[in-house]
């Protein structure tokens, strides 16, 4: 085992995923005290253009092959497992994402190494790697030492800043072998329906959660959004009920947003949602539950019924806007 930190890179639709830079920045931070190097493993097809953004790494291990063009768990796992066994890093960082989550279990078994999920904090303390993971819907945190062996850690997106991962540099490049023929094949990509608002581009967001209670109250939220000059978005439960289209979903399986204003109305603040909006500049939350996790994240909060507050707020904003 070396003291290196390995990052499993991700990309989607030709763009490097933000999580990769977040993990790269963290890897850089840890590699120092661990006394090792930073390696990014990047799989795909025609991924050369993406490598320019990975200057912060010491080494890039690239597998470029048509079979790797789209993420297929089996092919990626085969290549990465091989590399882990070869390189024997101290830590392997993955995103707790549609990609990382499919890999972490099979890799843990194939490379015979422990794995951990839901990580929100990683530090080197007195030579040990100490991690914190969030559990139980974000209500409980667990602190633990990552064992003194190669270990896989899946990190919640947004836990670490991306900036430190953007340093320039000229890493050495290693080519990895193609994967064997898999039992899983990619058929097609299904895109979300077009023509709706891209909430990641709207600076003022009115976000509704279960506390909006029923579909009848959505127009109230829309009126508030219009008065503000913003748009309505929602947490998963609202989308699952069909009260708003999939494109309005903020959170793990939805969109990540960084607006100037995020009004969290009737949203409890479950981790899957928080992941998608924690970087908002101003978060104001309204929820009937004084213990809702959202209040730990918001800048301002009020314990009240979102359904009551929304029309009153619309009125106030109209009056204030003149």
């Amino acid at each position, binding site marked *: 085992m070396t003291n290196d930190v390995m990052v499993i890179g991700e990309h989607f639709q030709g763009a490097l995923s933000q999580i990769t830079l977040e993990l790269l920045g963290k890897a850089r931070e840890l590699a120092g005290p661990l006394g090792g190097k930073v390696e990014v493993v990047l799989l795909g097809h025609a991924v050369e253009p993406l490598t320019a953004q990975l200057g912060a790494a010491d080494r890039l291990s690239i597998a470029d092959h048509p079979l790797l063009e789209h993420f297929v768990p089996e092919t990626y796992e085969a290549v990465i497992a091989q590399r882990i066994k070869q390189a024997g890093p101290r830590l392997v960082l993955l995103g707790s994402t549609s990609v990382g989550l499919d890999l972490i279990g099979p890799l843990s078994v194939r490379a015979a190494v422990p794995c951990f999920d839901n990580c929100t904090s990683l530090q080197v303390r007195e030579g040990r790697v100490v991690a914190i993971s969030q559990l139980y819907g974000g209500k409980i945190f667990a602190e633990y030492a990552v064992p003194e062996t190669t270990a896989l850690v899946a990190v919640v997106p947004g836990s670490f800043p991306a900036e430190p991962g953007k340093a320039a540099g000229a890493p050495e490049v290693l080519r990895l072998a193609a994967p064997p023929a898999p039992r899983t094949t990619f058929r097609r990509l299904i895109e979300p329906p077009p023509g709706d608002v891209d909430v990641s581009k709207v600076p003022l967001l009115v976000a509704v959660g279960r506390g909006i209670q*029923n*579909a*009848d109250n959505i127009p109230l939220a829309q009126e508030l959004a219009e008065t503000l000059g913003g748009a309505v978005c929602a947490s998963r439960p609202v989308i699952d*009920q069909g009260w708003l289209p999939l494109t309005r979903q903020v959170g793990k399986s939805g969109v990540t947003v960084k607006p100037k204003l995020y009004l969290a109305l009737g949203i409890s603040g479950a981790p899957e949602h928080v992941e998608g909006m924690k970087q908002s500049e101003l978060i104001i939350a309204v929820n*009937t539950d004084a213990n809702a996790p959202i209040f730990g994240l918001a800048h301002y909060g009020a314990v009240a*019924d979102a359904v*009551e507050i929304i029309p009153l707020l619309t009125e106030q904003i109209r009056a204030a806007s003149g």
Partner: protein
Amino acid sequence: MATLRTPPIPAVPGPLFPEIAGAPDKFRACLQCGVCSGSCPMGEVMQFPPRKAVKLLLDGGIDQVVASNTPWLCVSCHTCSTRCPSGLLITDGLFPSLRAAVMATGKIPDPDLQKALQNTYLYGNPMGTSPKKRADWAKTAGVPVPIISQLRRPVEVLWIVECTPSFEARGQQISRLLARILTALGIDFAILGHEERCIGDCEWLAGEQGLFEMLIERNIETLKKYRFREILMTDPHSYRTLLNVYPSLGGNYRTKHYVEFLAERLAQLKPMLKKKLNVMATYHDSCCLGRKTSHYEEPRALLKALPGLKLAEMAQNRESALCCGGGGTTTYLDRYIQEQTKDRLADRRVQQAAATGAQILATACPFEPARFEDAVKLTGHEGKLAVRDIIELLAESMELV
């Protein structure tokens, strides 16, 4: 003029018969007169209004009714059952049976109703809130609200608060005001707090007989532990279920709704009603307090006692009152019902209220303020017609707000 009769009381809770296709004998007395369909506020939307549904039941064609929109459009207003010359258990027997037949397939048409039933099974309330939080509303009541398990002595009045008045914002506010009124009257009362579970009216009418029986068993067990002279209730749905159905499974209690309880104490209340309200009000007879248990005059007596309040009557009042559309689980079927009809009963009722010239629509059922206030907005009467529970009006006049 229809006669004011209390509808028949089912001797056994839950659906009349496990397989409604068999044993239709109880319905053989049907005259096919059509008073039920004619009285039904949803009769025009149902694919098989009550008369047709009974006919199909007798002719062996009930499966068609089960598969139609009919089972889920009944608002449990009891108008049909009250007027049926043969005294058939349409609302409390036929419709829960139809719903039970649909539920046996595992498919419930509205996810809100499924969630409400699942929550009641797990937590004893349809909201899905921990029972430990049942008495949270009382923390800011402004007066002590004792929990009977902590009192360790008998009480005069055990107040069963029920789900909506315990967990929903407006309902909680009304509960706090009633606590203050009871205190002002010097009543020795207590609540069940975390031991309270849904009485089961919605579950019964939803056709969830198993869940209903589970709730009754649990509630009777809990009540056995305590000594109290009478039970006070704020929710008319639970009131009529506790009054009329629990006895057949061994739960016999002296049970009163707050309109009766407070009307009994009118002489004591009157001098406390200091503030003049100077307003015209009209009273909506809720189905459970009205047709199902015949409490027509007590709420009116309370309203008339309020200084400065003039009472107007809507054309459809007392036995002919129009349902708000929220009873018998329909509160959880709004989405499904909206797919079937855009005509909302609450809107119709609010129009009737506005037509009397009243500024206040007075209610005595916790489901109503939310439904009627939505309807006030949707029918353009915002600012002209306010919805108030009788408790809120009394508390205002007693200067307890």
